[in-house]
């Protein structure tokens, strides 16, 4: 799987029109200089050889090459930015799970009543709002009109508020919908009737018995969405000038800085796989049946 991803990332850059050697050499370079750069970078070798070199460097030296824009190691560039993206993405995961799951529970308990219609209506509208639109509306309201929050930068927690909220939007809406659906399904099952029959409070029934089982599909979703959040961070980081990996990647795309593009895409894909693996492990912990299955 990881090999497949690495080949895909490698090929991605190979298939790019526009020759990195020509870009590197600048506008006024002679053909001889371009040829020399090409040899230095190993771009004159056949593709499998280039891929072998790429993997050798990556596996043996942990290196993804150097940025053609700054001349620094790609791994250093990424590691500098990674904490920012992780903070943003994890805040969004926590925020969207708290908000999404609570709203989903409220909707399920009040099925068919006003609270249900309101939260589910809100969820589908939330799903339909482009995150960058919400981001810009928040900037207009909280930064430009009320002057509560700064527009760009990453110097205090205040900088995190708007990007995290914007990034959480879709994810919270999806979680609310799924929580409601799975909870309704679980609430109809027999053991809950037993729980009620033995005189437990409705709240205890929902929280201790129903929600725990409903958490299983929800936790899959948290893992699956982590990748989506990383992707969404590309746009959000650009709006708020948040110095994360997404911003690094977009800058790299505009300057055709291929090693950095390659590195960030590889990183996000790997992070996505790891998140899904973590969910599989979490599964076994939440649902003992799976261990024996």
């Amino acid at each position, binding site marked *: *799987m990881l090999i*497949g*991803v690495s080949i*895909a990332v490698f090929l*991605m*850059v190979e*298939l*790019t*029109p526009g020759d990195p050697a020509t870009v590197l050499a600048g506008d006024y370079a002679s053909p001889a200089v371009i040829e020399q750069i090409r040899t230095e970078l190993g771009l004159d070798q056949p593709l499998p050889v280039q891929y072998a070199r790429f993997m050798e460097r990556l596996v043996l030296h942990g290196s993804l090459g150097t940025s053609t824009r700054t001349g620094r190691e790609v791994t250093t560039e990424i590691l500098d930015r990674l904490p920012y993206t992780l903070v943003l993405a994890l805040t969004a995961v926590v925020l969207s799970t708290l908000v999404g799951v609570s709203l989903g529970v409220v909707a399920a308990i009040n099925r068919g009543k006003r609270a249900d219609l309101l939260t589910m209506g809100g969820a*589908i*509208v939330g*799903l*339909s*709002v*482009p*995150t*960058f*639109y919400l981001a*810009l*509306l928040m*900037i*207009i309201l909280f930064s*430009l009109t009320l002057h509560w929050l700064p527009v760009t930068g990453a110097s205090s927690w205040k900088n995190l508020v708007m990007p995290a909220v914007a990034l959480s939007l879709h994810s919270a809406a999806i979680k609310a*919908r*799924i929580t*409601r*659906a799975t909870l309704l399904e679980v609430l109809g099952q027999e053991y809950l009737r037993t729980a009620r029959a033995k005189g437990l409070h409705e709240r205890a029934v929902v929280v201790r018995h129903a929600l725990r089982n409903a958490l299983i599909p929800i936790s899959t979703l948290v893992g699956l969405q982590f*990748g*989506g959040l*990383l*992707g*969404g961070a*590309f*746009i959000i980081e*650009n*709006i708020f000038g948040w110095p994360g990996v997404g911003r690094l*990647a*977009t800058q790299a*795309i*505009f300057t055709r800085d291929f090693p950095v*593009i390659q590195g960030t*895409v590889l990183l*996000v*894909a790997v992070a*996505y*796989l790891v998140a899904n693996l973590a969910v599989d492990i979490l599964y076994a912990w939440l649902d003992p049946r799976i261990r024996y299955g």
Partner: protein
Amino acid sequence: MRDTVVRLLHQPLAVVGLVLFGGLLLMAAFAPLLERYDPIAISVSERLRAPSDAHLFGTDDFGRDIFSRVIDGSRLAVKLGVLSVAVAASGGVALGLLAGYYRGWVDTLISRVLEIMLAFPDLLFAIAIVAILGPGLENLIIALGLFGWPGYARIVRGSVLSAARREYVEAARTIGASATRIMVRHILPNVVAPVIILSATRFGGALLAGSGLSFIGLGVPIPQPEWGAIMATGRDYLATAWWITVFPGMLIMLAVLGVNLLGDGLRDVLDPRLRT
């Protein structure tokens, strides 16, 4: 079919969705009649005008009429949505059919490639493709269409696996029907409902992703009135000319809300099991 439509019309939210989606299609169809100005004509004397009778949604930093640009943008939005869904559905359905029908190494190969595609989060995959091919409407359609493949292929493959074992398929094979005929005539009809439902979701997703990419400059280039691209020009004027950003964003929201409501309604009518 008729029954489906009738039941759909009994759902108030689905009707709202139909109205919004229909409105988008009508807007795109009659755009030239609705536009009061040339959507890309520059008029320096009219720059950054607030909404008024002359310019319902105001003007941008080049004096272009936002209302006309937004109306014209609906054509790009419909084109992007329809074509990217077509690319996604045709490729995904074909791959899913092949994988499910032939199984064996064909299935293994197709499933592996799709799994790798799934390892890249949606938007990242689109960004990567656009980074390779360069910005533009066609490339955006290809990018958003390609990353739809795994979703369609997975649904279709599953349905084919269960349908291929049915007796009527066995019967068709016994009387000598070709593989293509069996796939198209006997298996494909089983997957129509989930494919339609997924298409509604993808249409909305394509509008969101497309406008988002255009917004950061990786989608449709700026002089074209793509909604996200218009919003990108408004970004520098949020404090002074909010209308450049607010109106196109509202249109995206309404268009996506329309297909989402329609998709939910279709799902409830066509396939109650998928209800969420």
